[in-house]
């Protein structure tokens, strides 16, 4: 869908923003570009809609070289969301959203009708459409930014740190909304962030950039966390890389046993069989339980097992009916095995220097042989 072929960008002041980038972003799905500031991720994004022109190399969107298209028309066919939203302060929210349809000549009535529809899509009330951007909260403004980008239903959406300026609670909400929207719309999204947690949450693929515009690795989050290409990636993923990996792994495969019967602890259930609380028969006190489904993560299982007075987590099916329990040791073993596999793979990859060649998604992945550092970074994050 979007192809970078040997793309190079050097700014007039001599700094190289993007260095020999070759990368294929398949249709559909979210690709997150991450890296510290100055790593060329935003420049890479902005070259897709020609907000920045490459120095050399070719970028194709849907097979067509972007530099051979009229820049304004190209941009109208690609959704673009930026940090701070960049809304037009002199236009109402509705007219902001209608921007691209109006540029495309849909006519005011049709453009506004489409904009009104989108207010609902991004979770804003019809009333918000009549307001001006400064009358909305930061999170609401960001929603308007997303609605504006979606207005002409472009197949590609570029998002440049769109949630960077809102508080953590709102940010999580917006991330959830985006995931929900994406499930509905199935756009090809390129998303820039410096927040690795955001990348892991949103990305179907994550491309990690290093200062100087080098792409180091591009892989699905599970693979990235399990097998970082080199010490730089491992370091960037952070000491809690192992935990992040646990957060992406479901617990469906974990064995479960029957709930304890007749001991000190009793698992209270409602008539439908939904677990409610642990009852301590010695003291006659109750501790509420948070039952987990197969799609819940190993990390939440670990968390629940620590919180549970029995060390057991209650497992339920899709309808919330109890299916069994899993004990702390099983969860711990599983987590530990995942963790160890991940660090061993890192070591193997660094030793053999083969990951880059094996991994079709990571061309130009420079593998620095700093295996010891990488493993140490992993060890530091292990659950003690």
């Amino acid at each position, binding site marked *: 869908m979007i192809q970078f072929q040997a793309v190079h960008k050097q700014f007039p002041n001599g700094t190289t923003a993007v260095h020999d980038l070759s990368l294929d972003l398949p249709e559909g799905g979210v690709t997150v570009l991450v890296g510290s500031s100055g790593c060329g991720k935003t420049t890479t994004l902005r070259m897709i809609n020609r*907000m920045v022109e490459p120095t050399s190399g070719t970028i194709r969107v849907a097979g067509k070289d972007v530099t051979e298209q009229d820049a304004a028309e190209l*941009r109208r*066919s690609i959704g673009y969301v930026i940090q701070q939203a*960049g809304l037009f302060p002199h236009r109402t929210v509705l007219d902001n959203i209608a921007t691209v349809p109006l540029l495309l000549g849909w006519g005011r009535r049709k453009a506004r009708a489409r904009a009104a529809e989108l207010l609902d899509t991004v979770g804003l009330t019809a009333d918000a459409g009549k307001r001006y951007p400064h009358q909305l909260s930061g999170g609401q403004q960001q929603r308007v930014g997303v609605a504006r980008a979606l207005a002409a239903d472009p197949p590609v959406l570029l998002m440049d740190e769109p949630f960077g300026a809102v508080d953590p609670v709102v940010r999580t909400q917006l991330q959830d909304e985006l995931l929900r929207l994406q499930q509905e719309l199935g756009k090809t999204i390129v998303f820039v962030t410096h927040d690795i947690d955001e990348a892991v949450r949103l990305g179907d693929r994550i491309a990690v950039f290093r200062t100087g515009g080098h792409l180091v690795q591009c892989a699905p989050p599970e693979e990235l966390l399990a097998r970082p290409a080199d010490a730089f990636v491992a370091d960037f993923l952070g000491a809690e890389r192992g935990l992040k990996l646990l957060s992406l792994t479901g617990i469906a495969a974990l064995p479960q046993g029957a709930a304890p019967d007749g001991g000190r602890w009793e698992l209270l259930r409602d008539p439908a069989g939904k677990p409610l609380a642990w009852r301590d028969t010695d003291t006659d006190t109750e501790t509420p339980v948070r039952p987990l489904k197969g799609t819940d993560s190993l990390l939440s299982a670990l968390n629940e097992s620590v919180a549970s007075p029995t060390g057991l987590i209650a497992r339920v099916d899709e309808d919330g009916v109890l299916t069994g329990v899993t004990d702390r040791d099983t969860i711990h073993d599983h987590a530990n095995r995942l963790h160890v596999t991940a660090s061993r793979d890192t070591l193997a990859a660094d030793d053999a220097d083969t990951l880059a060649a094996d991994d079709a998604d990571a061309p130009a992945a420079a593998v620095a042989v700093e295996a010891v550092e990488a493993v140490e970074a992993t060890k530091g994050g292990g659950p003690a």
Partner: protein
Amino acid sequence: MYELLVDLGGWLTGPEQWSGSDGIGVRLLEHLQYSALATVVAAAIALPIGLLIGHTGRGAFLAINLSSFGRALPTVGLVVLVFLASGLSMTPVYVALVALAVPAIVTNTYAGMAAVDRDVKDAARGQGMRWHQVLFQVELPLALPLIMTGLRLALIQVVATATIAAYVSFGGLGRYVFDGLAQRDLVQVLGGAVLVAVLAVALDLLLAGAQRLLFRHRAPATA
């Protein structure tokens, strides 16, 4: 002093002063006509310059410095200079008034354009607006409050300075000032000066009110 004020009051309110071909009414209209024409011509010159340097971000240094230079020119000197070159006509007066008004309009237009949020301009371009669409649909409307302020400033300065038309024997409220000086009629000089001042202040208030009404939707930060 008191006596002077009473005379001034009498002069300003005397019905004979307000009628006739050299009455205050006619002089006021002449004055407004000179001022309006000079401001319109100045705007026609200064607005495109200010918008262009504001949009491109280029030539700002040169334009701002030329404007400061223009502002420092002595107006009466300019009138005399052009008068010597072109002979007796309204041209020297208009040249001087336009030269006075251009800097205020250029600098304010540029300041208004420069104050438009970079993110907003970036978003406008990123949504697929062409340069003229960015300029006329986004930058110009956002810069408008400051551009209006520039026009207001220019108009006030021109109104106050248009008295020099009388210096080269034309009309306007300056007539009273220069005639009064020639006739050593202090009341008439004062009367002319007061009329000019009142006209300037009234116009300023009127435009400020219009501006407030026009931009009442704006966020405080951008207005």
